[in-house]
C-alpha cells in the first residue's frame, strides 16, 4: 500500500469520523426524547437522583472494568468484590468498630479478591474469564456460609449511629459525598489509563501481549495491578452501596457485572480505535442510567426496560460499527 506524501489532514466529513459520535448522538436523542415524553425527567431532583442512585456505584465498578478490559482481560468477579466488601463493612460496624475500620476492612476483603484473581491469572496462567468465574462461584458460597444461607444484615439506627449517613448522605461544598468519591475515581483512572506510562503499557498489553513482553513490559505486574485496582474500586462501590441502603444484602453485587461490561463496550464506540476509555465508559454508564430512569418515568415495567436497553445497545453499536464498516 502506498500513501501520497502530503496527506496530513483527513477529510473533515467522513462516515468513519461520524461513526464515533453515534453514542453521543444516541445519548442526546434519548435525553431529548425523555425530556419531552417523561414528566419530571429534566427536574434537578430527578437528575441528581439518577446520578446518586443509578450512576455513582455503576460508574465506579465500570471504571475498574475499563482498566481490566483495556488490558485485554475481563473480570466476572466484580460482584464478589462488591459483596464481600459490603459484608465485611456492615459486619464490622455491627460489631461496633465504627465506619472507618469498617471501610478499611471492606476494602481489605476486596483486595483479597483482586490478589486471588491476579495469582490465578499470573501464577497458574488461567485465562481471566475462567479465573474470575471461579472466584465468582467461590465468593457466592462464602457469602451464603457467612450469612446463614443468604440472610440480609440490617442494622438498627443505634448500631450504625450515623456511619452510613456520613458516607451516603452528607454534602461537601454542596455536592453529595458519593459524587465527590466518584469524581476522584474518574480522575484517578483517567490519569492512570490515558496519561501515565502504566496506562500505556496496559493498552499495549490489551492489543498485543507478546509485543508488550518483547518490548520489556512486565506483563505479570501490570496485569496484577489492573485486577487489584478493579477489585478495590468494586470494594469502594460495595461500601457506597451498603451505606445507601443501610444494610448488606448477599449477592446483590452481581447486578452490576453485566452493566459494567456493557458500559465499557458501549464506550468503545466513541473512538476510532474502538478501545475502552474512561470517557466512553462514563457515557455508557450515563446512557444505561438515563434509559432505566426514563423508561420507568414513562411507565414501562422492569422487564420491558430490559428490552428497551437491549434494543438501544443494538442501535448504538450497530450504527457506530456499521458506519465504520461501510467506509472501508
Amino acid at each position: 500500500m502506498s500513501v501520497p506524501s502530503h496527506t496530513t489532514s483527513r477529510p473533515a466529513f467522513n462516515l468513519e469520523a461520524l461513526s464515533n459520535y453515534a453514542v453521543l448522538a444516541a445519548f442526546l436523542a434519548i435525553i431529548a426524547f425523555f425530556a419531552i415524553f417523561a414528566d419530571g425527567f429534566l427536574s434537578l431532583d430527578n437528575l441528581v437522583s439518577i446520578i446518586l442512585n443509578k450512576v455513582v456505584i455503576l460508574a465506579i465498578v465500570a471504571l475498574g472494568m475499563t482498566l481490566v478490559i483495556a488490558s485485554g482481560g475481563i473480570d466476572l468477579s466484580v460482584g464478589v468484590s462488591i459483596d464481600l466488601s459490603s459484608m465485611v463493612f456492615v459486619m464490622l460496624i455491627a460489631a461496633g468498630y465504627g465506619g472507618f475500620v469498617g471501610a478499611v476492612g471492606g476494602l481489605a476483603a476486596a483486595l483479597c479478591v483482586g490478589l486471588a484473581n491476579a495469582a490465578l491469572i499470573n501464577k497458574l496462567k488461567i485465562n481471566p474469564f475462567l479465573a474470575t468465574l471461579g472466584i465468582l462461584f467461590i465468593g457466592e458460597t462464602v457469602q451464603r456460609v457467612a450469612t446463614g444461607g443468604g440472610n440480609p444484615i440490617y442494622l438498627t439506627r443505634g448500631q450504625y449511629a450515623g456511619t452510613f449517613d456520613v458516607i451516603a448522605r452528607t454534602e461537601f461544598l454542596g455536592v453529595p459525598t458519593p459524587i465527590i468519591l466518584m469524581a476522584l475515581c474518574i480522575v484517578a483512572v483517567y490519569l492512570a489509563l490515558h496519561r501515565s506510562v502504566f496506562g500505556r503499557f496496559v493498552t499495549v498489553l490489551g492489543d498485543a501481549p507478546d509485543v508488550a513482553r518483547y518490548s520489556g513490559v512486565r506483563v505479570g505486574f501490570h496485569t496484577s495491578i489492573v485486577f487489584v485496582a478493579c477489585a478495590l474500586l468494586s470494594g469502594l462501590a460495595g461500601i457506597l452501596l451498603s451505606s445507601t441502603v443501610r444494610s448488606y444484602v448477599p449477592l446483590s453485587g452481581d447486578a452490576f457485572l453485566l452493566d459494567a461490561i456493557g458500559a465499557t463496550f458501549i464506550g468503545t464506540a466513541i473512538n476510532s480505535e474502538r478501545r475502552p476509555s474512561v470517557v466512553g465508559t462514563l457515557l455508557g454508564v450515563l446512557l444505561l442510567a438515563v434509559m432505566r430512569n426514563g423508561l420507568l418515568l414513562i411507565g414501562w415495567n422492569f422487564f420491558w426496560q430490559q428490552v428497551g436497553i437491549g434494543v438501544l445497545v443494538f442501535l448504538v453499536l450497530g450504527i457506530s460499527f456499521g458506519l465504520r464498516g461501510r467506509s472501508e
Partner: protein
Amino acid sequence: MSEPAIEMRNVRKTFGPVIALEKADLVVHPGTIHGLVGANGAGKSTIIKILAGIYRKTAGTIRIFGETIEDVTPVAIERRGVHFIHQDRLLVPTATVAESIFLRNEPRFGPFLNHRHMRRRSKELLHRYFDLELSPDTLISELSTAQQKIVQITRALAQDARVLVLDEPTAALIDKEVKSLFKVLRRLRDDGLAIVFISHYMSEITEICDTVTVLRNGVDVGVVDPREVGIPRIVEMMTARNTSEMYPRRAVALGAPVLSVRDLTCEPYFRNVSFDLHAGEILGLTGLLGSGDKEVLKALFGQLRTDSGEIHLNGERVEFRSPVAAVSSGVAKIPEDRRAHGVAAGLSVRENVSLASLSDVSSRGFVNRSREVEVVSGLIDDLNIKTPGPDQLVKNLSGGNQQKVVVAKWLNCNSQVYLMDEPTVAVDVGAKIEIFELMNRLAEEGKALIFLSSDLEEIVEMCDRTLVIYRGEMIADYARGDIDADRLLAAASGAPAERGTPAPVRRSA
C-alpha cells in the same frame, strides 16, 4: 483479439487515507496465462480481492466477458465463471474429495444428495484433467498440498470455470508438483480458459506466463511479454531501481566485543555455540528450517532457558530469565512474526514507536504527549515511514512500513545489541533497502547486530561475518568476502566439503 475475459480499468481502492491501489488496469484474454507481479504492497492482493468481491472498489470499471458488473460480490463473480484458488483458503479437512469438488454445487436426487453421481464425476474430472487416479472417498486431510490444490482446481472446473485466478499456487509445492501443475495449466489455457497467475517466483513467471502485468505502488507500470523482456527488466519495473543498489552495506571499523557467548547449549535445539560480537559489527546467522538458528536468538533474548554456557555483555556475565531482563540490559529484538510479536497493530504508530523508550518522554510516570509526538514524528521522517501521521493505526500501514515501525521502536532506546530475526521477510524491495540502511546506521553508531535471515544473498552482502548452524551445531564461521550464497547453502545443508574447510570456528577475536 478476442473479447477480454477480465477487463478491469482504472481501478482504485483506498482505506481511509491510505491508498492501496491508485489506478490500475488488468486485462486478461481467454486462452492466455497472464502473470501478475509486484513487490509487497504494490496492490496485487488488493486488485485480486476487488475482483473476488472481497473488497469494494473505490473507483473504476470491471467487465467480465464484456458485461459490466457494478456490484461485485463473491457469488456474482463465481456465477460468471471466475474462480479463485486462494493461497491460504484451503478445503475442509474432514470432507472427502468428491464432497469438496461439489461443495456448494451438489448434484441432487430429489431432496437428497446424489452421492453416486458425485463420486463418478469426481473420478472422471480428476482423470481427464490431471491423469490422477484418486479415490473420491479419500479425505482431504490425507492428501498432499499439491493434491489439495488439484482438488481446488477441479472444483472450479466442475462448475465450468472460464477464468481461473491462482494466488501463489506453487508456494507449498515441490519441484515435480510444480511441473505437473504447469502442464495442467497449459492444457487448460489451450482449452480456452483465461488464467491469472500470481507468483513471487520470477522464473515461474517467465516459464508459464504469456503476458505479465507489473504493479508498482498501486499503479500498473506495464504489460509485457516476460520471455521477451527477461527477469532483470521485470524486477526493475517492480522496484524502479537497479539491482546493484539492493545491498548498500558500508563496513565500519569494529570496536570492542560487546557480546561474548561461550559454549552456549540449549538442548535439544543447539549445543556449544561460541562467538564474539563487536561494536559496529553485523553478524550473520543462518541455517535451514529447524536447524536451531532461531533458538540461539531466543536464548540470547531470554525466551529460552539455556542448559549450560555463558553469555557476557560488556564483560559482565548475564543470565536473562525473561525478555524483560534482556531489554533492560540493552538487548533489543526485531521478531520474525511481526503481527504477533513486533507491532501492536490496533494501536497507533506513535504508541508503537515510543513503547520501548517511554521513560525518555515521560516524567514522574506520566507521558509528556507533546514530547512524545515530537520524538515520534522525528523518527517517522527519519526512517521515511509512510503514514498520514503519528496517530494512524499500524494495521493500516503496509508490511514494510510496519517493519520500520518495529525498528523505530528500538532506535531511540539505549540498546547496544540488536537481534534481528528475518527483518526483511514479507517486506517489499524498497523497504528492504531502507531496513539495510538502518542496519548500516546502527552499526555506524557502534551498535552490535545479529542478522538472521534465510535469504542467503542478504547475509552474504550485508554481514561482516556469518555463522552457520546445522542441526544445532555451529559448523562454520565465515569472514566477509570468503563466501557466496551457494557455499553458504551447502554449509547450511550440511555438505561435508563445507564442514571443515573454512577457518575453524573462531573462539575469540
